[in-house]
């Protein structure tokens, strides 16, 4: 029975994919919202990447909701697994010399790379969520190489709380200045330079730190639970 539903699902999937790749002639989508955003987003926010403008400026409250959902999921997993902060290592062997050396070499590169993705979120594709995931992967690589140097759960919790607070404080400041919650404030700057787009890079920085701390916490507590 399950196999037949599988075959049905895969047939539908392949039909959908081949319908995507053949040129779409069935109904041109009107794209009213897309045209409006394309026309006005650069003047409104000063961000070269329009996806960032939508995610943080037009739909900032939505992003706050996503952040709350992620926080709830991470909290639930933390409750189930328990934050065993004891430093005694379990029976897991270390990953070997080559992986340990590669982790030591790659960790600063991945850290710089994650900060690049986060800070250039308003210029190139990327941003808080993606950069935060790279940040978490970098810290997890250290845990993987040597299960002794686990990350400190207290520190990541403090970072996560501060970043989440910073996101809301930035919104509240714009509420005090302009009367609208999470409106972009600060100077828009020159389009395409690093210090532009007003408060959007600050929001993305807070977002990236929060997501990175949460995911690093989750991965490390998944890896280091005694069976």
């Amino acid at each position, binding site marked *: 029975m399950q196999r037949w539903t599988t075959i049905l699902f895969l047939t539908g999937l392949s039909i959908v994919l081949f319908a995507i790749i053949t040129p779409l002639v069935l109904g041109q989508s009107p794209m009213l919202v897309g045209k409006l955003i394309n026309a006005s987003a650069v003047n409104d926010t000063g961000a070269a990447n329009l996806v960032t403008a939508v995610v943080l400026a037009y739909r900032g409250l939505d992003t706050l909701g996503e952040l709350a959902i992620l926080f709830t999921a991470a909290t639930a997993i933390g409750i189930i697994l328990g934050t065993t902060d004891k430093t005694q290592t379990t029976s*897991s*062997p270390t*990953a070997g010399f080559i*992986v340990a050396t590669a982790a030591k070499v*790659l960790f600063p*590169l*991945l850290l710089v*790379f994650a900060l690049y*993705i986060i800070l250039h979120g308003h210029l*190139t*594709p*990327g941003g808080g969520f*993606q950069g935060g995931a*790279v940040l978490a*992967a970098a810290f*997890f*690589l250290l845990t*993987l190489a040597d299960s002794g140097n686990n990350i400190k759960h207290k520190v990541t919790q403090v970072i996560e709380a501060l970043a989440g607070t910073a996101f809301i404080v930035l919104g509240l400041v714009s509420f005090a200045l302009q009367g609208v919650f999470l409106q972009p404030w600060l100077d828009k700057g020159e389009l395409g330079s690093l210090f532009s787009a007003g408060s959007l890079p600050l929001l993305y920085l807070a977002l990236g730190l929060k997501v990175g701390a949460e995911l690093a916490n989750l991965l490390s507590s998944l890896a280091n639970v005694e069976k």
Partner: protein
Amino acid sequence: MSIIQSIALLLLFLSVLLVIIRFILGPGSADRIVAADSLSVLGTVVLVGLAAVLKNSIYLDIALVYSALAFIAIVVLAHIMEQK
């Protein structure tokens, strides 16, 4: 696009096809893991090639992310296999 570049891109996609064939007929799951590992590197190269074909440098970021992160899943897999 010159003819040499066309031949090179054709060779690139033929190699992707060969890796997929190894994935299909690999007798054990170890062979399939090796095929997926090779495919992650080939996917990076194909992404850079697509960035060159589309003449847009923002696709290079995706290749960068891919080359940096594709090995973490493999290393985790090897680590778990070793624990058993």
